[in-house]
């Protein structure tokens, strides 16, 4: 996992890429907590979103959760094969399990998110 990956409190991760885009996924902790994923709905490419806005939904056997945009921007790509191989989210959450690529409206928004240590501290305090 790249050192510059950042996290939202709502368990999405975001990683700036060399081309100015950023890749978004959900953390291994979130996948493990949801258990038994059965369905996923992705956003449309071209959609403009604001930080905190829902960009998709994921269903496990007993719960539906929203996936939130950690930063504002335009959705430029989605991992369209992911809903057909949801196990990838658990096996490789920071690689093949990426969800969308976004063109950030303001790249400094990423810097204001949690770094790995701060995120680990949050999930370490959660009851299991």
């Amino acid at each position: 996992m790249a050192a510059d990956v950042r996290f939202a409190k709502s368990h999405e991760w975001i990683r700036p890429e060399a081309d100015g885009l950023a890749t978004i996924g959900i953390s291994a902790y979130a996948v493990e907590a949801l258990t038994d994923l059965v369905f996923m709905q992705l956003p449309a490419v071209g959609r403009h979103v604001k930080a905190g806005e829902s960009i998709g939904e994921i269903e496990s056997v007993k719960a539906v959760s929203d996936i939130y945009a950690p930063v504002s921007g335009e959705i430029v790509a989605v991992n369209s094969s992911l809903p057909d191989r949801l196990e990838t989210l658990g096996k490789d959450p920071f690689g093949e399990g990426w969800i969308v690529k976004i063109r950030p409206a303001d790249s400094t928004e990423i810097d204001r998110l949690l770094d790995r240590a701060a995120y680990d501290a949050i999930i370490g305090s959660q009851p299991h």
Partner: protein
Amino acid sequence: MPATKQSLHAWWDPPADGPTNMALDEALAAEAALREGMLVRVSSWSRSTLSLGAFQMLGDARDHAGLEGLAVVRRPSGGGAIVHGSDITLCVAVPRGHRCGSAPQILYDIAHAALVEELRERGVAASMSSGRPSPAPPDCGNGSAGRGGEPFLCFDRRAAGDVVLPDPFDPGADCKILGSAQRRLRGAVLQHGTLLLAGNADLPPEVRHPGLDDLVGPEGAWRPPHAARVVRGWLRRLAAGLGVALVESTGRFEPGPDAGFEAVLARFQEDAWTARR
């Protein structure tokens, strides 16, 4: 606004239609986030209504034998479809930061274990399912499959933690009487629990699931108003398990002024929501 961090606040609401119940439940979740404590809304349905899980196909409901003519509403929560009308809905809302809000199974197990305890105290052999897939016997429904091969109806499914009773007509089988499903919102977790009190007389036998009254008896002992005793006991045990005080409201749940209730209600009334899939 009363502080609720150290209390469990519960409301007993009158019967309502599907969209109203869904909108009130979302408002309850918003209120839980504001109050930073667990809230419960006990409700029922003014007519037999099919509630779809968030991602279920409306077409599957239309094609399902025995469900014709029912009012339909789509829940924000997941899980399988439920025919309401002979049940009590136990809506539990907790803030995301609550100790029960971090993972789905935590709230699921706490709410369901409290009901198992209450029923066992009353001599009912209730237990929590291991979730192992089991074919639904005829007495428990027709088991028609939906997306992913899972039965379309919630009460034909078995998930870990579902509250089940032995099937009196089929040794070794069980019948589910309480199932729950969640919507994990930004600020709160909303859990819809359905406690089946009796088979729904509006349904043909092939899709009618037995409830407490059918499985335990004597006839009528578990229907309203007697069912309130079980739910009240459940609330007490839920609060005791969390180590908080139970506060039962004398009035119905009223959405907060900032909850945007009318807009939420309109969303649940719209065909665009019900037919989103």
